[in-house]
């Protein structure tokens, strides 16, 4: 029976023991772990059992044309331990076409809207998500605007409305 709130290093060691060698780094006292996309769901469940019970955020980075990047998308899970105030960053890298990963809504209900936002803005599909609709953009929007290959001024969507003149109203 492991300690209910083991140290971050011990948790990382347990992750390595279970999922094989992982890339880890420490920045200003906070640990980051890179996981394979297929392992993230199980790994996050293990981390939740080991005390990282708060999912602070799910977000994404598009590494298109980023110097030295090997993958297109970096999915980031920010976890926190509400007892010891430790934090842990979990990353998983995804690629085109069809970047997708298992949803963590079964683990944290709060991931629902976070994953919807990532789907909306980056087009990462979350398999098993109960309601994967757009969150911030209008429902009829087709693009994923935070991708780096999406033009800042859009593809004409913002001009695509009926014009109401004095005669119509």
């Amino acid at each position, binding site marked *: 029976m492991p300690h209910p709130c083991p140290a971050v290093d011990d948790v990382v060691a347990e992750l390595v023991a279970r999922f094989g060698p992982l890339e880890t780094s420490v920045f200003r006292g906070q640990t980051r772990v890179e996981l394979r996309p297929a392992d993230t769901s199980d790994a996050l469940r293990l981390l939740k059992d080991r005390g990282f019970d708060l999912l602070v955020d799910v977000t994404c980075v598009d590494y298109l044309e980023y110097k030295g990047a090997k993958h297109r998308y970096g999915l980031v899970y920010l976890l926190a331990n509400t007892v010891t105030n430790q934090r842990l960053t979990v990353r998983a890298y995804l690629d085109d076409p069809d970047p997708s990963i298992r949803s963590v809504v079964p683990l944290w209900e709060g991931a629902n809207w976070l994953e919807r936002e990532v789907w909306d803005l980056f087009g990462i599909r979350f398999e098993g998500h109960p309601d994967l609709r757009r969150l*911030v*953009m*209008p429902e009829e929007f*087709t693009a994923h*605007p935070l991708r780096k290959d*999406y*033009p*800042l*001024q*859009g*593809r*004409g*969507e*913002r*001009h*695509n*409305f*009926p*014009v*109401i*003149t*004095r*005669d*119509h*109203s």
Partner: protein
Amino acid sequence: MAVNGSSKLELPENVFVSKLDELASWCRKNSLWPMPFATACCGIELMATGASKHDLARFGAEVFRFSPRQCDLMIVAGRVVMKMLPVLQRIWQQMHEPKWCISMGACASTGGVFDTYAVVQGIDRFIPVDMYVPGCPPRPEQLIQAIIDLQDKIQREGTITGREFDTAGRQARKRALVEITSPLSIDASRNPVLQRELAAAAEAIGPRT
């Protein structure tokens, strides 16, 4: 009123003659009821305009109503995103005639610094606007000036039947010069996706005989 022997009109001192149009406009301009469509920092200045220091009540326009059906002046204060625009248009259509619109601030008028995919680049692309207030955000004095100018406009152009809004008649001569071939109200010229769909639809229909 009395008519004397030389068929000259004599009016008592407290009576004066005007046109019905001018009387209606005079009533309307002095009792504008604003609809505050406040989405950003301009909304704060809009509230300040209504508050005691600047006191919009001096110009008869202090009765902010949050139902468009009770308003005749829409003040769009702040940026309008593309998800909000259908709401804005619907609120505008729910307001009763005669109605006017003030575009307050740089964002509402032009999109301001937010030249991005999500922000509408000026509400006048999609709804009619009577007055533009420059500024980021404009001071309450500027908004009051715009309301005074709008009052002038109402007094000068207003008619009791709202003929000044009959832009169809006014625009007809201009439109005659440009033949509109597409019945679509959506502007497809800047949307490649829509253009592709239109081309596909035209192909499916076949050449016109």
